[in-house]
């Protein structure tokens, strides 16, 4: 049976995580993400899960990695300053191939910035925040309903690809309350990590299954021996300086996601078929953009709307063909221009780019984007 709730975006993320099977949360409260920790603290014990408030942000993600290694689907949540602190251990999880979900409810920065105000200044940090090459999967939900849905997907992707998956929420969405139709658990698609089918004696922890190029994952305590390191390692999990082994490992960190790119990429469009101008926006800003696009349509302007649901991998090919037809893109962001460069890369100069930036702690007003549409469409 579905049920109707009136939830905050943060609360929706927390219940989505529980529905996905999350049973461990290690974290440190930070505005505007704290409600996620609050709900997990209250609910996880009910499901025989564990919530630990750690001494700081770094320990929060470290515990989350530990929870995942012990066999539990694990999550942590934070905001800008904490997202910065988590970057090093995020890298460890990429390298050691540990499935975790990290939520960043974006607020204004740099530094402690604006705890109670919205920004979209962390979207490039999601891609390049931790050093070293790795593939990134990052969702940017734009409704409270979608917070629930992408959190389940984030866990599924983390489990499937054995790596961190990011949810890039924002202050407006995190604190906003909205109607959510909560699906029946029975109807959900839930992915669990692949476990080794061999005996502990035969287990080679990082040897990929030829079927999907992904190594099955044993849990600590299951009797399978497994060495975890942040150093580049061979299939046995031990550090290596062998160029062949290094190349194999680092390439696989990219390939394991890139090979399934089409199954990961998600986006939404409205009115793009005959559009001369397309507004590309994500997160809470997409809602302002959609309002402006609809108002512009009412005025007879041929304007479309494109929203990447996955910021990474970015729906580049999908946008490129639409952009070529339209010829002009408007990209409003609550930063001085971050995804706009990725969008520029995606469209290969086939469309003119109009960048809009707002960095005052507020959302764009629909009238501001509408004005820009009218100016560009003319």
């Amino acid at each position, binding site marked *: 049976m579905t049920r*109707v*709730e*009136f939830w905050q975006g943060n609360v929706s993320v927390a219940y989505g995580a529980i529905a996905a099977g999350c049973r461990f949360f290690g974290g440190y409260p930070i505005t505007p993400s704290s409600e996620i920790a609050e709900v997990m603290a209250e609910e996880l014990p009910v499901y025989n899960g564990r919530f630990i408030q750690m001494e700081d942000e770094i320990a929060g993600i470290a515990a989350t990695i530990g929870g995942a290694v012990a066999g539990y689907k694990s999550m942590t949540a934070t905001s800008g300053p904490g997202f910065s602190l988590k970057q090093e251990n995020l890298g460890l999880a990429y390298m050691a191939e540990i499935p975790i979900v990290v939520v960043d409810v974006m607020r204004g920065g740099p530094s402690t910035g604006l*705890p*109670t105000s919205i920004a979209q200044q962390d979207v490039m940090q999601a891609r390049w925040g931790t050093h070293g090459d790795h593939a990134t999967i990052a969702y940017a939900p734009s409704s409270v309903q979608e917070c629930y849905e992408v959190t389940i997907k984030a866990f599924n992707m983390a489990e499937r690809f054995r790596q961190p998956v990011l949810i890039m929420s924002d202050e*407006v969405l995190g*604190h*906003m*309350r*909205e*109607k959510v139709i909560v699906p029946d658990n029975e109807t959900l698609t839930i992915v669990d990590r692949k476990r080794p089918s061999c005996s502990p004696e035969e287990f080679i922890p990082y040897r990929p299954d030829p079927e999907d190029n992904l190594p099955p994952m044993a849990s600590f305590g299951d009797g399978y021996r497994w060495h975890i390191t942040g150093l580049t390692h061979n299939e046995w999990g031990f550090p290596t300086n062998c160029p062949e082994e290094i190349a194999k490992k680092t390439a696989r960190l990219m390939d394991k996601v890139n090979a399934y790119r089409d199954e990961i990429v998600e986006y939404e469009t409205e009115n793009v078929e005959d559009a001369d101008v397309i507004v590309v926006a994500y997160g*809470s800003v997409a*809602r*302002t953009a*959609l*309002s402006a696009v*609809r108002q512009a349509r009412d005025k007879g302007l041929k304007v479309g709307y494109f929203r990447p649901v996955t910021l990474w991998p970015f729906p580049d090919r999908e946008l490129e063909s639409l952009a070529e037809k339209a010829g002009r893109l408007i990209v409003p962001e609550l930063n001085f221009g971050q995804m706009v460069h990725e969008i520029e890369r995606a469209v290969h100069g086939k469309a003119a780019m109009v960048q809009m930036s707002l960095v005052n702690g507020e*959302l764009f*007003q*629909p*009238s501001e984007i509408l004005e820009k549409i009218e100016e560009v469409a003319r």
Partner: protein
Amino acid sequence: MRDRYEIRFAGSGGQGVILAAVVVGEAAAIYEGLNSVQTQAYGPEARGGKSKSEVVISRGSIDYPKATSPDLQIILNQTSCDEFIGQTAKGGVVVVDDTYVSSVADSEAEVFMLPIVKTAREKIGRELVTNMVALGVTARVLEKEGLMKADSIKKAILARVPKGTEEMNEKAFNAGYNLMKAIR
């Protein structure tokens, strides 16, 4: 019902304006089957400071989640009144509290000055229930607009308030409802 109906509660921190908006949003989403979105803006203080909370209600999908020109504003202090009254939608309704608001700037909206805080203090004996009186006022306006039943808001209140306080809150709600019903 119109495509989009916007409500804003504004006052100072501690007056319960955020909870008021949450209750209206819940009434719409859960008891009326409508779509609703509630947002808020407040400073870091727990008491005092400016506090603003909004609900957008619609039968269709709601894109922009905040109010741009509210159809109904319930204003509980002077600074909020000065800042927000001019933003009211054409033909919209503004209800201001007569204890904390003394001057109301000219506006095209229909403005009512009501003893919201006074009712909470004197009739119920607790200024704490100011927001419940405000919700009673709101319920009457929304009922007259044909947006939702007053009872849905009452149900949402009773589902949310702490056990043992239901009677006081319901009394405050009824008092607010009657304040508005007497004039509209």
